[in-house]
Structure formats: structure tokens, C-alpha cells
């Protein structure tokens, strides 16, 4: 016997005993791993899908142009996009502003200016009537939002200038009003005016959610015939020559509009300019809180999985305590016992964690594929490393705590005490 009394069992022998114990009780091992698998998979699915949705929206926003600047009437308080609600009622943006903004002497970096108005309208064809969102817009709307036409064509600047009664409609509107018939060239009645359907949009894209249920007409005819002869706009989009030109252009727009509105004190501005960056930042904010919420939900499922693991391990404490007593009687040291249980817990946590990661990513990939197929929008497949880290970390902690802690208690008993345990 050596003086230190250290056991000679090698680490690999102890690892072998740990695997033997896990394989010897397959059901217990499987149930324990299952708790970990469910928790890890849940957190990865939630966080990866959250990240995918966020990436998709940001990518779409990006794709319709970091060169775009959005002017809305009224003043937004602070950085909160929600307080813009009141701005809709504000009538500060008029045709004269558009003319000034289009003047290269005022805003030299602007390549296009597109005003728009919004409302809702009822449209009738034959005996079919629908109530839909109306967008009255300049002819640049199709380029700005990357809207593609499935049938017919878009309206043009000439149509806008001539107050043309021309409409491009979403595919749901087309289906509701015309069924299987070809809508192009048909006349629909809105507010007692006959508008000719010139085009039908192809399916929606994320930059313009809801396009399937919209009717888009020139802003001139919308203001004149459909919204009761108003002369203001709800939004104006100005596009800069380059992304780099955006900050300078924003200043030019401010100068132009303040001059136009006789404003000297910037804090009294009756318009608000938002850049792509502002919008992305507010989308980010929304998603951070959404992802945080979903993560909480997933964390709860991880916890539930953890409680399952804990239960199974505690239920087997009696059996395992006797086993520990016997092993000690046969010459195991407390160190041998702890190492074995540590290995068991690690193997279960790592094994369960890996299956959970693979399963979670598999479900995510499937969900992304289904969403892409169903919507026609290509969802990106984003792996949430934070989700993986969190899931594996928490499950390992649970496995170690509930696997090793009872074993530590049992290992401290004398062999007799542990053998007698019930």
C-alpha cells in the first residue's frame, strides 16, 4: 500500500465504469438525457428562429435601400417610433414641399422624391365589394419598395401628373373582385369613380408587408377623388445618390423644409426625418425585446427539463447510494466515486446537449424551409450561438448539480451507512 492511500483506479477505468453504469440503466439514462435534449433544443429553436426573422427583416429593409430617407409630418418625440401615431393627423407636408425637394438647387443629392397618402377604400366590381388599404403614391413607389408586377404594368409619372384613374392591385384584391377572370383593363368603382386596373402585384415581399391586400393609385387621383380633395401627404421618401450622401442630404432636406415652413427654431420642426439607420435601430429594439421574451419561454422549458433530470436523479439516489456503499466496501475512494458520477453527468449532459443542438437546428432548418415555401420569402437560416451556449451551459449545470451533488453526499458516508441507506 502506498503512503498516500490514493486509489490506483485509472481515470479511463473510472470513465469505463461511468459508461457501464449509463448503459446498464438505459431507461434512466435516456430519460435524463431527454430532459436535457428538450431544454437545449427548445432554446436553440426559439433563439435561432428569432434571429432568422430579425435577419430577414433587416436584410429586406437593407435591400430596399439604405439610400432612402423617410419624411413624415409632425414631430416624433424622442426616438420612439410609436409616438408617430399622432403625426398621421398632421397636414404639414404639401405639394409645394415636394416641388422644393425636387429642385436640385435645394437638395442636390436627391435622385427621386416620392410622396404618398394612405387611407382605406371600398372597391366594387360587378356584385363584389371589398374594403382595402389604399395607397396613393408617386410612380417611384415600385422601384423604392422593389415591387414587382405579375400582370399588366405599373402606372407612370404621366399617369400621376394627369390624375389618371389607374390602379395596381394586390393579388388577394384581384382574387376577391375578379375570381378567375383577367382583371387587366377592367373598371372598378371607388367613391363613385371608375378606376381602371392596370396591373396586379406579384406576391408580397417583406419590405412592403400587406401588398397583397392593397390598392395603389397615383397620389394625385387618390387625394382628389378618393380622400375628399386633400392636399397633404402622409409620407415622403427621398432617395440619395449614394449611401454616403445621406447625412448631407438630410441636412439639405431640413434646411429646405424649414425655409418652406418658415421655421427658425429646429425644436419646432413640423416634420420628422428618419433614415434607414433609424429604422433598423428601432426594428432591432423590437426584436431584442421579442427575442428576450422568447428566450425566457425557452429558459422555462429548459428549467422544466432540468426538473425532470433532477427528479430522475433523485429517484435513483437510494439505489445509487447503496451502489456507492458497495463500491467503497470494495476499495473505491470518495474521489473514485465522485469522478465516476462526474463522468456520468458529463456524458449525459454532453450527449443530451449534442442531440439537443442537432435536433434544435434540424427543427429550425425545417421551420425555415416551411416558412420559405409558404410565404415565398427566403428566410435565412441563422444559428444562434448564444442559444447553443445557453442551452449547453444550463443543461451541463443541471446535469452536474443533480448528478454529482447526491453522489457527493453519499460518498461522504461510511460504507456501512451507504449500504444500509433506504
Amino acid at each position, binding site marked *: 500500500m502506498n503512503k498516500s*492511500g490514493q486509489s490506483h483506479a485509472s481515470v479511463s477505468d473510472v470513465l469505463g465504469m461511468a459508461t457501464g453504469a449509463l448503459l446498464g440503466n438505459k431507461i434512466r439514462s435516456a430519460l435524463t438525457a431527454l430532459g436535457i435534449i428538450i431544454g437545449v433544443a427548445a432554446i436553440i429553436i426559439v433563439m435561432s428562429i428569432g434571429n432568422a426573422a430579425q435577419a430577414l427583416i433587416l436584410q429586406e429593409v437593407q435591400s430596399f435601400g439604405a439610400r432612402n430617407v423617410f419624411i413624415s409630418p409632425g414631430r416624433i418625440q424622442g426616438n420612439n417610433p410609436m409616438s408617430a401615431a399622432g403625426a398621421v393627423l398632421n397636414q404639414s407636408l404639401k405639394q409645394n414641399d415636394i416641388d422644393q425637394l425636387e429642385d436640385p438647387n435645394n437638395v442636390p443629392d436627391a435622385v427621386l422624391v416620392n410622396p404618398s397618402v394612405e387611407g382605406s377604400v371600398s372597391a366594387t366590381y360587378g356584385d363584389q365589394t371589398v374594403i382595402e388599404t389604399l395607397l396613393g403614391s408617386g410612380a417611384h413607389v415600385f422601384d423604392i419598395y422593389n415591387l414587382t408586377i405579375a400582370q399588366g404594368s405599373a402606372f407612370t409619372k404621366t399617369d400621376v401628373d394627369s390624375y389618371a384613374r389607374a390602379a395596381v392591385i394586390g393579388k388577394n384584391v384581384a382574387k376577391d373582385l375578379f375570381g378567375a377572370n383577367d382583371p387587366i383593363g377592367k373598371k372598378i368603382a371607388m367613391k363613385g369613380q371608375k378606376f381602371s386596373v392596370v396591373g396586379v402585384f406579384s406576391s408580397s415581399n417583406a419590405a412592403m408587408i400587406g401588398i397583397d391586400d392593397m390598392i395603389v393609385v397615383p397620389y394625385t387621383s387618390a387625394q382628389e377623388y378618393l380622400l375628399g380633395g386633400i392636399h397633404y401627404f402622409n409620407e415622403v421618401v427621398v432617395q440619395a445618390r449614394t449611401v454616403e450622401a445621406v447625412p448631407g442630404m438630410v441636412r439639405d432636406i431640413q434646411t429646405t423644409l424649414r425655409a418652406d415652413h418658415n421655421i427658425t427654431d429646429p425644436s419646432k420642426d413640423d416634420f420628422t426625418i428618419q433614415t434607414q439607420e433609424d429604422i433598423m435601430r428601432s426594428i432591432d429594439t423590437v426584436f431584442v425585446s421579442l427575442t428576450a421574451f422568447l428566450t425566457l419561454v425557452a429558459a422555462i422549458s429548459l428549467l422544466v427539463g432540468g426538473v425532470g433530470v433532477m427528479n430522475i436523479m433523485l429517484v435513483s439516489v437510494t439505489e445509487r447510494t447503496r451502489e456507492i456503499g458497495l463500491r467503497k466496501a470494495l476499495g473505491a475512494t470518495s474521489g473514485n466515486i465522485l469522478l465516476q458520477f462526474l463522468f456520468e453527468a458529463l456524458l449525459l449532459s454532453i450527449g443530451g446537449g449534442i442531440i439537443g443542438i442537432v435536433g434544435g437546428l434540424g427543427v429550425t432548418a425545417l421551420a425555415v424551409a416551411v416558412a420559405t415555401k409558404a410565404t415565398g420569402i427566403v428566410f435565412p437560416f441563422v444559428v444562434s450561438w448564444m442559444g447553443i451556449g445557453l442551452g449547453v451551459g444550463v443543461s451541463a449545470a443541471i446535469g452536474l448539480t443533480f448528478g454529482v451533488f447526491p453522489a457527493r453526499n453519499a460518498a461522504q458516508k461510511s460504507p456501512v451507512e451507504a449500504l444500509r441507506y433506504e
Partner: protein
Amino acid sequence: MSLIEIKKLIKIYSDDGVDTRALDGVSLTINDGEFVAITGASGSGKSTLLQILGCLDRSTDGSYTFEGKEVSSYSDAELARIRNEKLGFVFQSFNLLPRLSVLDNVVLPLVYAGVSKKERVERAEAMIDLVGLADRRGYQASQLSGGQKQRVAIARALVNNPKVIFADEPTGNLDSKSGAVVLEFLQMLNDQGRTLVVVTHELYVAEAARRTVHIVDGRIDSDQPVAHRRIIAKDGFIK
């Protein structure tokens, strides 16, 4: 030098504030090669004594020297080492790991001893063969009959080539035929020079030993050689 020497050994269990004096000043010397039966009524303290002799538990007071060294001076890890190298155990309830194979059960003490994989398998197989279970090596322990389980336990107790084997009611859970086989083994081991300490409350098991120590209420009541020793292999076994 005697192998085992205890003096005025006292063991008090404290459970929920209730003290039980299970051993009340036991002094005893056991020499190399003896076969001692510890007898007495249920609750008299036999198992307690055996557990302390087997270094599975510590006494409350008194001295215990094993091979001339005071056991209370050993650390827990050193005691583990002594159990592993010098002692073998056979329990009434077998205490096999039910989900492991016969071979894996028997190999266990050798794993903790750090014996190489090849050697420990050879040694374990030799012991399993010795107890007549060569055809059951790969069976799960839970698939065996009681008598077979106890033979596996004996193989496990022997595999480290210990100085002493401690057995607590080794035939208590067995029918007479299996019990006879187990007792026969124990006698054979003693004939080969191994020291045996067997706890029993049954006379015919005690008659297989060479010396009986009778315990009453935690004290030694009598300590004498067995007058008419029963040789199981020759005389058989009547329960």
C-alpha cells in the same frame, strides 16, 4: 503478532437523539488462518462487530489493531486501500451490482486496485471458474439464482487474494443446498490458509467454523473452539 486485535471496543449508534450501545466493551484476538464464527441472537451486535473488523465503519471507543497498526490512525482513503487489498466481504443480501455482468462484478475490486485490464479479466475469470460459474460469466447479476449470486460474491471477495474474508450471514438468504455449497467453499478457503470471520445466528453454520465467539447484548458471552466440527464436504449440511 496477531492479525486482528481489539480491546474494549465500544460502538454507539446515535439515531435521532436515541443512543444504541451496540458493542459494549468487546476484546478479541484473531490470528492468521483462523475460522471464527460470531454467533448470537438477532440484535446482539454481531454485524456491528463484523463491520468494524472489516473497516467498513469506525468504533466509538476502544482500540483495533490490524496487522499491528491502529486502524483509527488511517485516513478514509487508506482504509479504502486496506479493504481493497487485504479484506474480502460476503453479505447476506449479496450486494452485487444487478445491471453489471458477473465478470464486471467480480472484476470491480481489481479495477480499484489498479490491476491492468488483461490481468484483471484473467484473474476474475479464474475465480468465476473456481466457484463453478464459468458458463455464467456474461450473465447479468440480476439473472442469477440466490445461490449463484452468493458464489459470485465469494469470487469477488477472493479475487484480490485478501488476508481475511468477512461474511455476514452468508447463507441467510439461501436454501439449504445453496447454503451447503457456500459453506463448503468457505471451509475450503480456510483449509487453504485464509482467515475467515463469519457472522451467523444459526448453530449449524457455526459448527462449520473452528472457533465460536458468542455475543449477548454487545458483550462476549463465550469464546471457545468448535468441539465437533462439521466438514460440509464430508458430512453434508442439514438446515
